């Protein structure tokens, strides 16, 4: 935005804080690493499969969240929608690439544990965001 071409942003647009993205995804990373530490004495392959599965969920979601909250407010509604689309396509492509790289390069792999960790982190993400929305911007 240049000085000569300024757009007025409504005051209310700045009042509502965006979700603490770093905190949400940091918490998810910490839980994934904790679960792998717990699984490590049981089975090494299981431990790193859980880490990989969790990270396949966290990394694209974090990218998506970063893209979504680049702009805020009614004045930037078009940019918000555009960054939503960009974030979602990036998330889709990143997920495909991470899964492909994992199955092509990582051997041996516990596929069941990988998918389970992926599902759990995905559900955790939805639960954290829903709690954040329902509890008035607190995690």
């Amino acid at each position, binding site marked *: 935005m240049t000085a000569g071409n300024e757009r007025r942003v*409504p005051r*209310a*647009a700045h*009042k*509502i804080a*965006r*979700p603490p993205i770093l905190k949400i995804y940091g918490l998810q990373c910490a839980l994934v690493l904790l679960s792998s530490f717990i699984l490590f004495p049981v089975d090494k392959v299981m431990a790193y499969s859980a880490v990989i599965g969790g990270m*396949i969920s966290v990394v*694209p*979601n974090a990218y*998506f*969240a970063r893209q*979504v*909250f680049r702009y*805020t*407010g*009614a*004045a930037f*509604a*078009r940019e*918000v*929608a555009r960054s*939503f*689309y960009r974030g*979602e396509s990036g*998330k*889709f492509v990143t*997920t*495909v690439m991470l*899964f*492909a790289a*994992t*199955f*092509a390069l990582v051997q041996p792999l516990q*596929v069941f544990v990988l*998918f389970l960790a*992926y*599902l759990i982190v*995905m559900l955790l*993400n*939805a639960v954290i*965001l*829903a709690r954040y*929305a329902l509890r008035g911007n607190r995690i």
Partner: protein
Amino acid sequence: MGLALIAVALMIGFGALGTAIGFAILGGKLLEGSARQPELAPMLQGKMFLIAGLLDAVPMIGVGIAMYVLFVVVPGLPA
């Protein structure tokens, strides 16, 4: 093997299609809502982010299974 590849194509293709339709509707509603009540735009954005996380959960699992079929099941099949 050919059927497995068709299954992978369908899983990825329909997953992407479903997500695209959902996001198109979601984005359109955000623009509409922001135009009608600009003061609610940041709240709508937060809600949209929440719904987006739920919207693409199932297609992403489908993508994961498709990649599993492509890289693990298909190489093990006889040509």
